[in-house]
């Protein structure tokens, strides 16, 4: 008697497995094939100008695997031969310059882990709970280690004139994405990056070159970066006027809402990751991040906010990076209302959705960082809800 996987000889115990080079570029186990980016078809008009979502509920730690980083592009994924890629710096500089990829590799390099969150992450939830799964409510985010050169080095190489107050990165794809970034940020921590998690950027993340704008909304992290223009005024282009401006209830709109507010979400349990094991010891886990610093503390509640508990932070705490938290508890098999609440290093505390709506109304689309609630029923199944 006993478990047949123990008492009976299994094929993998007897037969030979794959030799090396069966998969020269390795891939996940066939038993993990359900772990993938997913889209919501009704959100956009066409898949070449669309979005998909990182499966946060299937991941742990703080690093997002490259193949699971959510995608957002406006004219499809460009496939660019790095030998034909150039980066130009022009505008209010002493010498307009052109760099090849080989030139860029000769600058001093840095490595940093940063989260990239789309400003529209959780945007479908402004009017109320809508999508069942943290992949869909919170999955427009990823967190990887970038290797690249400080934008400051490149700007200094060209020599920024004293009248140069703004930079405008531009993409080489058919959308030719542009945004205006104040010089102060450009000289502070922006990177021009060509590696993510040690390997070349994936095409859908801007291969061969992208801009990294730590802590600021993902739309500014221009992919397939081909040009940086220096100017004395912002450009007010499409992605910072008709889009990525936050419409308030009175019909006025905030512009240049660059920084991502502190936010967190419980990734397990969640609608796509129900409790399958019944009552008893249960691991709750999630992610927290802030565009203004680190996350020293996350509070967790299992009763809808009557009582809160300090979650256990685990893993490195890096500036403008995702943080991982855990809360282990003994589930009595009853109903749960799960929430997490992030505190960032500036003292900011993640607000409830209604606190946020008091300031923003429900038409903002962008920058929804309100506290997420999952209702868990007695079967362990979770649902996206809001509570009083």
């Amino acid at each position: 008697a006993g478990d047949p996987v123990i008492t009976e000889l299994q094929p993998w115990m007897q037969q030979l497995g794959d030799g090396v080079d069966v998969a020269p570029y390795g891939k996940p186990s066939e038993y993990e094939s359900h772990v993938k980016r997913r889209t919501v078809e009704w959100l956009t008009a066409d898949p070449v100008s669309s979005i998909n979502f990182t499966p946060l509920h299937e991941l742990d730690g703080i690093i997002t695997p490259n193949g699971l980083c959510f995608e957002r592009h406006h004219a499809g994924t460009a496939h660019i031969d790095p030998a034909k890629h150039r980066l130009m710096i022009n505008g209010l500089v002493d010498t307009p310059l052109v760099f090849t990829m080989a030139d860029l590799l000769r600058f001093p390099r840095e490595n940093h882990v940063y989260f990239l969150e789309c400003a529209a992450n959780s945007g479908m939830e402004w009017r109320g709970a809508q999508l069942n799964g943290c992949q869909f409510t919170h999955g427009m985010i990823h967190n990887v280690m970038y290797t690249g050169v400080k934008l400051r080095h490149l700007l200094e190489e060209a020599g920024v004139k004293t009248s140069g107050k703004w930079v405008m990165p531009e993409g080489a794809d058919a959308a030719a994405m542009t945004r205006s970034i104040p010089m102060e940020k450009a000289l502070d921590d922006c990177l021009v990056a060509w590696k993510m998690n040690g390997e070349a950027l994936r095409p859908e993340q801007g291969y061969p070159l992208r801009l990294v704008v730590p802590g600021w909304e993902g739309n500014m992290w221009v992919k397939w970066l081909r040009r940086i223009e220096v100017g004395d005024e912002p450009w007010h282009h499409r992605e910072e006027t008709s889009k990525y401006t936050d419409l308030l209830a009175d019909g006025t709109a905030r512009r240049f809402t660059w920084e991502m507010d502190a936010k967190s979400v419980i990734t397990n349990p969640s609608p796509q990751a129900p409790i399958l094991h019944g009552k008893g010891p249960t691991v709750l886990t999630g992610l927290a991040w802030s565009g203004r610093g680190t996350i020293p503390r996350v509070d967790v509640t299992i009763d809808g906010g009557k009582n809160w508990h300090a979650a256990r932070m685990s893993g490195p705490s890096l500036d403008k990076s995702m943080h991982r938290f855990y809360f282990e508890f003994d589930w009595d098999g009853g109903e749960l209302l799960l929430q997490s609440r992030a505190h960032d290093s500036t003292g900011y505390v993640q607000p409830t959705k209604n606190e946020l709506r008091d300031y923003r109304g429900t038409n903002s689309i962008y920058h929804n960082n309100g506290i997420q609630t999952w209702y868990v029923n007695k079967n362990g199944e979770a649902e996206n809800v809001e509570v009083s």
Partner: protein
Amino acid sequence: ENLGLGRAATPDEIAAWDIDIRPDGQGLPEGSGSVMDGEVLYTEKCSVCHGVFGEAVGRWPVLAGGDGSLSDDRPVKTVGSYWPYLSTVWDYVHRAMPFGDAQSLSNDEVYAITAYLMYLNYLVEDDFVLSKENFLEVRLPNEDNFFMDDRADGELVAFAKPEICMSDCKDSVEITARAAIIDVTPEDADARKARAARLGMDVSESEGAASAGEDDATQEAAASAPAESGEPALDMALVAEGERVFKKCAACHQVGEGAKDRVGPVLNGVIGAPFGHVDGFRYSKGLLEMADEGMVWTEDNMAEFLRKPRDYIKRTKMSFAGLRKDEEIAAVIEYLKSFSE
């Protein structure tokens, strides 16, 4: 301490890539384009996604209308209602449009399409010509309603809570909203199987996803306009002229034998019929309110409607900008009268 890496960009290289336009006119090239030319270009290159009148097809961006809607429950953010600067239109059309054929338009064509988008938004008349010379005279109506990020003054202060409740924070908790009510989450059969497999369950049960979104059966709305007796004779020359003008309407409306509802209702017998006379057609709330008041379509109110649809019926679903010429209005009404049945 420069490293001396890279090389100087040539003037030709900079000219090839430096295509950006700013609100102060920096970057605008020489050139001009008329509303009239823009209409032809727009219809050919843009309307397949953005609709004949900027009303949009599917989920592509709406480009016209939405005036005064920004504080509504469902704001319509268009070039006319929301965008702060016209230079953004020029820049974006030039750098990224038409979708899938970026940077294929000449400078004059971009001026013309920009002019036509102004026309679709009631910002200029149909004889307007936009050029580098008059570009900076244009101000879009919503420019002053944008302001710099002010979170630091309000939210950041309010949400920084040095003391925060950790226990017995509230007496009761009620669920106030549920995703299950309006669940639009995509199905994921693979993940469900994987979860079941982890539990050691055998999943042969296939909870088929509700297949919503199948083609709605087209409703045959019978146009049942009361036949009038003793109608005045028609001016057949005007009817013929109206048939030509009606091509502008035909993108959304059908008329005549076998006509069916499209985006707009079938128009047989509309002159003389009560407002909202086509059974089963989903009229705008504004039109239905007028119908409740017992209003009937006459030549006069139809003329007023066709001149400025959005002025005559509040939030009409008819996204047509309107006919500018009285002769065209008279002609198309005469044409509609010829289908009085």
